[in-house]
């Protein structure tokens, strides 16, 4: 996938590597016979920057010599819409656990994820959500003694 997006991603990785290396300079490298907390991070930072720079260079030259992707190839590439929808639900789900509690938030998350993934109607997603919540409660709360969050809304 040698395209512009990959070039941008590699550049971003390189910048992150430089940031890590700069942050690593805060810590002392010590002496050779008593290495400090900064030795390993600095070595890793250098390796990461060199590797990402080489990837950027390879990507740049590779892109120039490679033909653009065909329309058929573009059609075959996976869609982003559903994963993005699921990601948004997942973020909302995790954020909703402390206030709503695990039962309600899990029910809502499974319901909407199943709907976005194409499970038609209302009955099937509701049954799926109820079944999963009941199973998770049985497994984690009753069998494994994991105290799942009750939720601030319910006084937890």
């Amino acid at each position: 996938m040698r395209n512009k997006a990959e070039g941008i991603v590699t550049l971003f990785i390189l910048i992150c590597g430089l940031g890590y290396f700069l942050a690593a300079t805060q810590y002392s490298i010590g002496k050779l016979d008593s290495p400090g907390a900064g030795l390993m991070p600095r070595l890793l930072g250098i390796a990461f920057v060199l590797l990402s720079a080489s990837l950027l260079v390879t990507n740049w030259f590779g892109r120039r010599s490679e033909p653009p992707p065909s329309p058929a190839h573009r059609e075959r590439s996976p869609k982003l819409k559903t994963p993005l929808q699921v990601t948004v639900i997942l973020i909302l789900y995790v954020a909703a656990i402390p206030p709503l509690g695990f039962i309600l938030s899990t029910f809502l998350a499974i319901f909407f994820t199943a709907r976005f993934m194409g499970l038609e109607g209302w009955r099937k997603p509701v049954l799926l959500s109820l079944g999963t919540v009941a199973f998770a409660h049985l497994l984690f709360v009753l069998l494994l003694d994991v105290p799942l969050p009750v939720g601030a809304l319910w006084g937890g």
Partner: protein
Amino acid sequence: MLEGLCYGLQNALDLRNLLAVGIGCFVGTIVGVLPGIGPTGTMALLLPLTFALGPTAGMIMLAGIWYGAQYGGSTTSILVNVPGEAASVVTCLDGHQMARKGKAGAALAVAAIGSFVAGTIGVLGLTLFAPPLANAALDFGPPEFFWIGLLGLLLLSNLSGKSTVKALLMATLGVMLATVGMDPISGRPRFSMGSSSLFGGFEFVPVTMGLFGVAEILSSCAERLESWEVLKVRFRDLYPNREDLRRSLAPMLRGGVVGFLVGLIPGPAAVMSSFVSYAVERKISRHPEEFGRGAIEGVAGPESANNAATAGGLVPLLALGLPFAPPTAVLLGGLMIHGVVPGPLLIQEHPELFWGVIASMYIGNTILLILNLPLVGVFASITRLRPAIVLPVVLALCVIGAYGVNNSMYDVWVMLVFGILGFFMRRFEFEPAPVVLGLVLGRMLENSLRQSMVIMEGNIWGFWSRPLSATLIILAILALLVPLIIRLSAYRKRRIA
């Protein structure tokens, strides 16, 4: 050794451990059958269950999921032409062709019998190799552990994905993540950005669940959300004829040996072993033209090899405490949350665990043969379940599982961030396995490097003065240079052509 194995069998036959091996094999088979859900994510997801089971039964269950998935993966490859597991990709070539010719039953039976035969060969190898290696490793010091860890990461990077540079980058990222948190020697926090949550660093379990569980689900959403069409197979068809068995026996035995040996090498051993076995069978076959058109050897060899590879992969973990593949990294994580430190002393300090896991694999292979032959139709029907039903449930269980490890929402957020990161990593062909291994081995690498420097009084040439350390350095240099030389010579050949 025999005494140890008897002790292990005695342990493995304990009711709790038998239940654990049964659950592990059953869940592993389901995970293997279902495309899009891998054993590593499932093992990480079920880590909280090990709190209830205890370390020995917990490890027996997790190992059961791993090798059970190798059995289940072949079912989908043969009946649907979609690999349930990456290690069963090559089985699609001949397995599905056999199914189309009405020989699905024979292909499934040969895959299950081959998995049993090779799985047993692999466990025999594990029984023979792990204890002497653990004994030898008692002489290892920090320099040897540093170089063996680095060698493992380099080999894994060479063998993961299409680009070595990308894999090396990901391995470095993993080690960088391991530096976040309290410095083990000075006790000073590093890269914590003032957050008390980051003082403890990144926990291995939520990171793995994110990279392998959530990311796999998000990737599956991007690819296919319809159920698969499954070829039907009748119970009475599940008997390979005498000719099928005659042709399969040697590939099964060869696959067992090849798989075990490849399993010892760091990297995606189960996948590699199946390809190596397929290449070997094709090379030595009297009818190579049959391969790809339904040759039974093309099913028997690879399906045997990927099972033996799981036993091979357990050797470095149980003997040295070093995981060289993501599933063994989860096993290591599972041991560590119970306060068990794997390594050369494991066999002396926790013989019930060491021998219990090994002995349970003999029982597990028998359970899997029983599960996978008569119940193959039941497992195959699981493939008909729509991803829109399976994936939301697994996603919710990932969130609850990540919370359950430490009862902390911070772990859930870490899993989520790494899940999203893992999804984009897959899109841009960055392998997640080296990140996980870098994270797991990172602390050990840093500690052993710093301890080595103290022992050698700052003389970096001291690494060469220890024979084993020097050998490992040479191997590490070769691991770095050989792929580079091969690539350069291929590039030159292309330019000349």
